[in-house]
């Protein structure tokens, strides 16, 4: 067994990452629901749900999410008459898979070297990880469109069309806002971008590309369908939007994928603008100097970096919750106006200014001249 592990360390570690990371993301959901409920309660001078107890232990209301899950699982399966028998079941999965899948390219710690093999702490090391992440994340629209269409309900269809147009509009700005960062770090590989943000805190993307960071965060809110951009739902005009006809576990999957896409978007913001797993002023080399480069030292280093990554993602997730309970939503025409007339020109302007500044500053640097071949 030990020999097998030693010989197939790459295979084993890849499998382990592919299993642990999705489970970790899914387990963020109950804590996010708890944070949302209690956080909103304390913001609104309430106490929030806290009374569910198991043997007298209340866990600050965490059991409520477990009770919710049990309710969802045991609920009756309702499929409306006229709903498409296959697509109706497929739609939640089509929304869930991109929400988890987009996380695959995100590095959550520096590479670890065990038994001479370099193991990237990143589920998939891809040549164009950023493109992959955005490509997969945009597939979520398919799930929403399919859910609306397969339900055979006018409210669902209208809701799904509205969310699809919202997500497609904001994807344009999303792609353009990250162009500035990509220009500066000269790479589409998330691990290279994170490595470039090592050391002092002002190397982080948010200080190099402040406009891009703010724009990306706002667009991220729209892509995750969070307030103030939660237009897919709207009780007064569309009932519950694309998931009007969904109940039980199928609804729970829509619910979970909303939170998981929040995690994914937070991870992307962290990677591009907040230094990824980098601890400010403490590089991997310095951590190795403190803990050593043997297996234990590398594990401690990775643990510190994963903690740093988780702290950044967690803060952004809190920001999502915090903004939701602060801001009122936009009207749909305001949303579209903001997307096309404000975000898109600002993103383009940011890109042009970044390109011009880089041309001036790095004109004489042979690495960034016209002959640069990457």
């Amino acid at each position, binding site marked *: 067994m030990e020999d097998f592990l030693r010989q197939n360390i790459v295979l084993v570690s890849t499998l382990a990452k592919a299993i642990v990371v999705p489970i970790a993301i899914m387990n963020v959901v109950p804590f996010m629901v708890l944070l949302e409920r209690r956080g909103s309660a304390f913001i609104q001078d309430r106490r929030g749900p806290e009374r569910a107890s198991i043997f007298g232990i209340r866990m600050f209301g965490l059991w409520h999410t477990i009770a919710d899950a049990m309710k969802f699982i045991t609920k009756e399966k309702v499929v409306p008459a006229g709903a498409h028998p296959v697509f109706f079941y497929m739609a939640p999965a089509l929304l869930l898979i991109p929400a988890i899948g987009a996380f695959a390219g995100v590095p959550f710690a520096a590479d670890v070297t065990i038994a001479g093999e370099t193991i990237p702490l990143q589920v998939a090391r891809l040549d164009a990880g950023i493109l992959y992440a955005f490509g997969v994340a945009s597939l979520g629209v398919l799930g929403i469109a399919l859910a609306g269409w397969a339900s055979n309900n006018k409210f669902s269809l209208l809701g799904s069309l509205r969310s699809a147009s919202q997500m497609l509009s904001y994807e344009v700005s999303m792609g353009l806002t990250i162009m500035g960062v990509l220009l500066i770090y000269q790479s589409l590989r998330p691990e290279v971008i994170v490595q470039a943000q090592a050391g002092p805190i002002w190397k982080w993307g948010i200080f190099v590309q402040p406009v891009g960071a703010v724009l990306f965060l706002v667009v991220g809110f729209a892509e995750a369908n969070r307030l103030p951009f939660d237009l897919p739902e709207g009780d007064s005009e569309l009932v519950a939007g694309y998931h009007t006809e969904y109940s039980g576990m199928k609804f729970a999957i829509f619910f979970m994928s909303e939170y998981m896409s929040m995690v994914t978007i937070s991870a992307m913001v962290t990677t591009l603008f907040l230094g990824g797993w980098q601890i400010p002023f403490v590089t991997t080399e310095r951590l190795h100097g403190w803990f050593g480069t043997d297996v234990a030292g590398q594990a401690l280093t990775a643990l510190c970096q994963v903690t740093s990554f988780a702290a950044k993602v967690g803060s952004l997730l809190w920001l999502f919750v915090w903004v939701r309970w602060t*801001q009122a939503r936009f009207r749909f025409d305001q949303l579209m106006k903001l997307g096309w007339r404000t975000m898109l020109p600002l993103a383009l302007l940011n890109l042009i200014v970044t390109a011009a500044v880089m041309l001036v500053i790095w004109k004489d640097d042979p690495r960034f001249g016209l002959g640069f071949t990457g």
Partner: protein
Amino acid sequence: MGLSEDLYLPETAKALGITLRHLVTNLTHQSEMPTINYPDVKRPLNAPERYRGRHRLLKREDGTPRCVACMLCATACPAVCIHIEAEESPTKTIEKRPMKFDIDMLRCVFCGLCVEACPCDAIRMDTGKYELADTSRKSMIFDIDTLLNH
């Protein structure tokens, strides 16, 4: 709208400050929050004197019920929730007494007409008790002993 409102983000930051202040205040001063943890903590009932709570039957000085089973309350009751069966009273000066006096609390509308109707001041709704819930229908029909020993 001024520039700050047009830009939207400064106002958002201001709003976030307000919600954060509420959050921090509530987290650090949890005991001062307006919520009363109801079943654990009960608010003292500052009810007016005429607050109509659970009924009670009053007793005479010798402990027998004041009720003379005249049926006026049962007649006055718009919800038909009072059921009285009378029997002869052993006391010579009193004609009847209730053998059964049931109030179906599931039907009662707490109008207080029974109290108004009673000529002997035998029934009152001045207990101030408002927590009337149980797990079976049967236990919500209060009999004469329950009403006397409120």
